[in-house]
């Protein structure tokens, strides 16, 4: 695969000597995310059933509450730093960017989506169903179980950070997204993001209605309904494709005129 494309160099314009897309940061980020997810899974394997069955035990506090207290501020702290960076370094001259720069930014947006969908996959598929294995084996005693501490309070914040970063990147760097809010992009970011507040309803229901975990119980339907908003990413890709097709022609036309 031609992972890295080289723009044709223009001596007078150093902007165009940059790569059109650089997948190395994506690969590194995937590696970091993968290390986090695999690390959490191994941690569960080692300590979930050993020290995670009784939330009142000192071992639970040592092995699980500590993880919870570390991961939440750490993940959100990194997230706020990324969001602040994206906002503070925004392009304040969006009307002056040329076609190649805009095209490069569309590729960067696609790179953000590669990270966002990768992180969403781990909660929606792997750790999401893994949560069922815990609940079908152990009756919950609090909202903080070894399964929840991983799936709800580590995996969900991670994809929220990447989703909101995608949204921020688009609105602050790409003209089309700065002039109009993309409805599908907002749906695709905010919908899955609302899964975190939906936990409030879920945990309230489990605390007062039923402790048993029938996964297809209506109490859980908020999660998949919010997950449906992921369909809207197709609309965002369509918006990107439409504009990129115009940019392709524009760049080709400019090159022809030069020749």
């Amino acid at each position, binding site marked *: 695969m031609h992972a890295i494309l080289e723009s044709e160099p223009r001596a007078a314009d150093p902007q165009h000597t940059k790569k059109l897309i650089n997948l190395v940061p994506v690969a590194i980020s995937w590696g970091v995310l993968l290390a986090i997810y695999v690390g959490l899974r191994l941690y569960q394997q080692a300590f979930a059933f050993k020290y995670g069955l009784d939330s009142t035990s000192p071992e639970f506090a040592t092995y699980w509450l500590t993880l919870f207290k570390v991961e939440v501020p750490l993940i959100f702290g990194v997230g706020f730093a990324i969001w602040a960076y994206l906002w503070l370094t925004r392009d304040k001259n969006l009307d002056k960017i040329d076609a190649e720069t805009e095209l490069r930014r569309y*590729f960067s947006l696609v790179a953000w989506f590669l990270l966002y969908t990768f992180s969403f996959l781990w909660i929606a598929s792997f750790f999401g169903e893994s949560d069922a294995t815990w609940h079908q084996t152990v009756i919950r005693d609090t909202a903080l179980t070894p399964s929840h501490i991983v799936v709800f309070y580590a995996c969900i914040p991670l994809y929220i950070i990447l989703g909101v970063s995608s949204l921020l990147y688009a609105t602050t760097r790409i003209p089309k997204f700065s002039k109009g809010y993309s409805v599908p992009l907002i749906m695709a970011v905010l919908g899955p993001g609302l899964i975190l507040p939906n936990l409030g309803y879920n945990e309230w229901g489990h605390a007062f209605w039923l402790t048993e975990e029938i*996964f297809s119980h209506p109490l859980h339907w908020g999660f998949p309904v919010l*997950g449906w908003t*992921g369909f809207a990413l197709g609309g965002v890709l369509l918006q990107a494709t439409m504009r990129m097709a115009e940019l392709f022609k524009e760049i080709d036309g400019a090159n022809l005129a030069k020749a």
Partner: protein
Amino acid sequence: MTDNDQAILAAAEMSPRIARYSRTFDYLIVVIAAFLVWSVTHIHFLLFAGDWDFFIDWKDRQYWILITPIVSIMSAAAFQAIFWTLFRLPIGATASALLFLIGVWIVRYHAWEGMAYFPLSLVVPATGLVGAMALDFILVLSRSWVITAVFGGVIYGLSFFPTNWIYLAPYFQPAEHMGEMASVADIIGYVFPRSGTPEYIRIIERGTLRTFGDSANWVSAFFSAFVCMFAYSVFWLMGVVACTPKYIPVGYRFKELYGAKIDAGAL
């Protein structure tokens, strides 16, 4: 570059360089689409029909045959709508069923068996792959989502239980239990009395794998096929609506903040 490639580029009015960019974009989209289809299909199925899929002894002739196709056709239809209306690719349903199957097997192996020590033979997942392929097949032939809903929905619902029978059949082998003949499914039922199965809606019988079979299977399959037609239609339309490329105008203040140009006359 072959003559054929050159002819295609000429027809598309693209230079080889731009075609290379475009192709790279295609590759990236394939990866994003695969992650998206996989994750949305899995979370959707997990929380609407997951329990029937987790355990072999929950695979009954009453609700498993009914609910699994209805729930799984929803995401298949939405992804068909997205792939077909936006990109003219008749692969949405098959991609949904296949990626879900891959994902679910990974979890069954790593979490169900690997963490909670359930034997894999007790947590075998179902598949709607055959019905999904039929859906894509009908869509590409008919080019109509209505025809696909009517005929594809029925085939999807009806084909689910026969195509899953292949891995259920071994559980009905005869086995000796305390001197009496029983099936493997019976023995699973004796060992795991399911006090937790949802009794509140099981009026006629308490469905488990033990009672799977007989004409009641087909009653459930036909009912499922009937509902599949409507589930397909609703989710096809949902897929189309979700992918409408709409923009809401940004106010002047925020436009300025984002770095876009404001027309002096507009203020």
